[in-house]
């Protein structure tokens, strides 16, 4: 925080317009750069959760998949707390079986 910001806050004035400009730009650029609309992002989030939950049990309430941007690089950040690992899928049965074995124990 700069001295100007501090005085503005103290007097209850609007923050300096350069700060407003910077924040608005950062937000709009995160979306421009990712070129993903919210529906696509939501679909991707669901599919990622589906794939991950085939292998581990994740906490869906706490999980979060979002876009973050900085330094011209937009990153997809997934934070998925794992409750417990599911029993390992046998290498041979993975290819055909996995897509429909969601939630089941493939080894059983």
């Amino acid at each position, binding site marked *: *925080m*700069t*001295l*100007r910001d501090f005085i503005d806050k103290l007097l209850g004035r609007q923050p300096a317009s*350069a700060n407003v400009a910077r924040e608005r*730009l950062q937000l*709009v*650029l995160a979306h421009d750069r990712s070129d993903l609309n919210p529906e696509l992002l939501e679909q991707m989030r669901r599919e990622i959760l589906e794939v991950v939950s085939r292998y581990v049990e994740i906490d869906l309430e706490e999980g979060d998949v979002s876009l973050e941007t900085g330094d011209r690089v937009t990153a997809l950040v997934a934070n998925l707390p794992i409750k417990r690992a599911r029993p390992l899928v046998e290498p041979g049965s993975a290819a055909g079986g996995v897509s429909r074995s969601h939630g089941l124990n493939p080894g059983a």
Partner: protein
Amino acid sequence: MTAPGTRYILICSGKGGVGKTTLTANLGIALARQGVRTAVLDADFGLRNLDLLLGLENRIVFTAQEVLSGSCRLEQALVKHKQEPNLALLPAGNPRMLEWLQPEDMQRIATMLGEQFDVVLIDCPAGIEDGFKNAVAAAQEAIVITTPEVSAVRDADRVIGLLNSHGVKPIQLVLNRVRPKMMANQEMLSVADVTDILALPLLGLVMEDEQVIVSTNRGEPLTLNGAKSPAALAYNNIARRLRGEDVPLMDPAKAGRGLRAKLGRLMTTKIF
């Protein structure tokens, strides 16, 4: 594809009216005065203006269009600057060229220019459509010019993304129309704000300068007559940096020496 040794530099911005053509004209003259054989290629076929800013509008006989169709030689279309013979303009053709012009055509023109010149500056049209794609095809490196305004910075960001995907490298930034007083009052995006957001190395800062308008009225770029105005100095420094010289950047926060400037510096000091 292109002759070795020649630098093909695209000057682009995305948004219109931020100073592409003014930079191209001034940089062209500045480089020529520093002994570099420079060609400026007007790639803005829709709304050409480079001829006007260079004061060459009455000397155009042929354009890129006749060169491409083979109805004249490159030498016939090139307009040499009278006071600065190291500089030549290849004028943009008729806007109807846009109906058939392909990126390969621009590459052909650039290659032809590369045989005679050390630097080819390509004045890019605004926007990111076909005109941009044609112009970028002829370029190896780029200068992105922007102003400290949200719309200009946003559009610059789009253009940088496209330049990256076309493999254009290096990409350098020129920040135009800087108002030190407004920056000191935090009513304008700071130099650091813009370079952080766009993540490009800064090639130069150009202060807001009334002399730019005066010089365009006359068709005599500021760099032509050794003018001492802030923008003239900035353009000359950009040319020197482009040639690899180490010229320190001006700090707009230190531009003012009065009480107001001191107060501005105090107000923008980080306190916590």
